[in-house]
């Protein structure tokens, strides 16, 4: 058994989310693997293009939708730039699923508040669909999502879909200056919108993912609202290579993000050295 050897996946669909962010819909080439593959919301994988290398992204689709996975990535380096040139029908490598996951079972019967910024919506989207596909198992669902500008918002079709759902409260915001002339959503930074949109913390789990600066200013807002540290959950996106707890770069203190994470409660994060 070669733990570093990927399985092959075929690109079935490509969505250009923004000028530099793409979503791939992927299916395993091998039917047996396709049938046996399963994952949980929050897990990630190593995606590769042979000759270019591997990159780490979360699985952005929900485990409630089987037969395929989706990943979203921003063109920032060698591998993501090469991936961005691919077409439907091309083949890439995938290793996974790796890491821990969001406590969906424990979240049942509770309100769920999703807070995401930028491409940080990718891992949160996986949980959003997981919750919405099992809607009756959860109480109130609130989504707060923000990006720098209207052009930087990802999953735009889904944002509309969530906004049209009567049993989901969705707030989409852009940073001041990032609005277009016809923008009808919120204008303001994510923490400020959370403050405006959310009134209570009782029986509620908050799932937060976004740039470090957004998280830094959102946590105090949640704390002020009365969220207990163990009810604020995030996912860390450290640089990884192996995804298997070996290559040594994703650790925060004695925790390997790829194995012990990437999902952590704020209570757990506080026990770690501030090095993430």
């Amino acid at each position: 058994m070669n733990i570093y050897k990927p399985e092959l996946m075929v690109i079935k669909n490509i969505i250009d989310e923004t000028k530099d962010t793409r979503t791939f819909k992927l299916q395993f080439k091998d039917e047996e693997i396709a049938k046996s593959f399963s994952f949980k919301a929050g897990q990630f994988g190593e995606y590769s293009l042979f000759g270019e290398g591997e990159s780490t992204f979360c699985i952005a689709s929900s485990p409630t939708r089987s037969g395929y996975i989706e990943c979203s990535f921003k063109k920032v380096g060698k591998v993501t730039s090469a991936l961005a040139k691919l077409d439907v029908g091309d083949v890439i490598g995938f290793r996974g699923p790796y890491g821990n996951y969001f406590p969906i079972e424990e979240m049942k019967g509770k309100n769920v508040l999703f807070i995401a910024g930028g491409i940080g919506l990718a891992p949160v989207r996986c949980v959003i669909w997981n919750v919405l596909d099992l809607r009756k198992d959860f109480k109130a669902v609130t989504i707060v999502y923000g990006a720098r500008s209207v052009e930087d918002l990802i999953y735009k079709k889904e944002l509309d879909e969530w906004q049209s759902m009567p049993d989901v409260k969705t707030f989409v915001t852009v940073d001041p200056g990032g609005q277009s002339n016809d923008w009808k959503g919120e204008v303001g930074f994510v923490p400020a919108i959370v403050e405006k949109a959310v009134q209570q913390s009782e029986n509620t789990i908050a799932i937060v993912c976004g740039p470090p600066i957004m998280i830094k200013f959102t946590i105090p807002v949640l704390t002020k609202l009365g969220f207990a540290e163990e009810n604020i959950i995030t996912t860390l996106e450290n640089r990884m290579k192996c995804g298997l707890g070996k290559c040594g770069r994703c650790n925060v203190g004695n925790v390997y993000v790829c194995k012990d994470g990437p999902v952590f409660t704020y209570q757990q994060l506080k026990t770690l050295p501030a090095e993430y």
Partner: protein
Amino acid sequence: MDEKLITLNNLKIFAEELLKANYTLILQDKQGIRWEKISNSDELHISSKLKPTKASFKEFVFSKTEPIFYFNNKNDGVELIDSNLSAEKMVFFGSKPCDAKSINIMSKVFNWDYKDNFFNTKAENSIVIGMLCEYRDEFCFCTSVNLSPVSSDGSDLFLIPTDENNFAIRIVTEKGREFIQPFLKLFAEGNPETTDQIFKKINLPEKGFESEVIRSWIGNNFEHKYFERAGEICLGCGQCAFVCPVCHCFDIVDEECGYSCGRRMKNWDACQFSLFTLHGSGHNPRHNQTQRYRQRISHKFKYYVDKFDEILCTGCGRCSRGCPVGIDIGQIAKEVHSLAANKV
């Protein structure tokens, strides 16, 4: 403890027999740089007084670079071809205790959940013939990290020179016992009490610090200014990780070997490099050298101990002997110990 005796002459015959039986014999080279394979038993030069080579024998079990698979990009898809696992039977001959322990220490991380068979195959195919060590310099500190010049921990067999032309050999593991079985005619029965007497006469390096004190201090002083002392002079060259017998960080990199083919490689990497933890976004959790040096010390004396109950250091002193700016990890540990003792 089972113990045998062997003359220097028979030890050479033993080496000859091993070569005939297709074992690869690997020894410290005469230049003191690295471990090398020998093809003739006349090259068998072992001594308890040798200075540790600049590099350890780590590279033979955890390769500097190795293909993890090959790929062919074809018109109708991609073909992945497995990389062959090495079946070479290796014998590390005359290893100092600070090298002998390395395979067992690294084995923890390569097996704690997912199993790395590139490492495991080589580790399983290895026999470590350790040897009592009589080399000392200001950089050695094995006794501070739960080892000693007479420790057979990590060795399958352990050589003890009894005089210039004679050795006792201890059978330490079952693997060692099976390995030596076909060659027993070259050995005479030994007496462990005699070698115990030899051990007692060995001058042990003074213990410079308590590793548990270091672990606890790091746990409580993550933001301590002391880390800047090494961090500010460290060049980030990574030599310390490369010569270390137990540093095991690696990178995964694709190499193309033609228009449509190539291989994915597992290459040594080092936590002292700034790119090691750099995110795609530009954010870097360890963006300065102090943080990276703190990671090195903390990984060795705290994180690995917390996780795997092993110190990620054998006290061999290689990183300090080779450091271009004179960072001495043993000295740092001593200073941390005194900081802890003075509660500052």
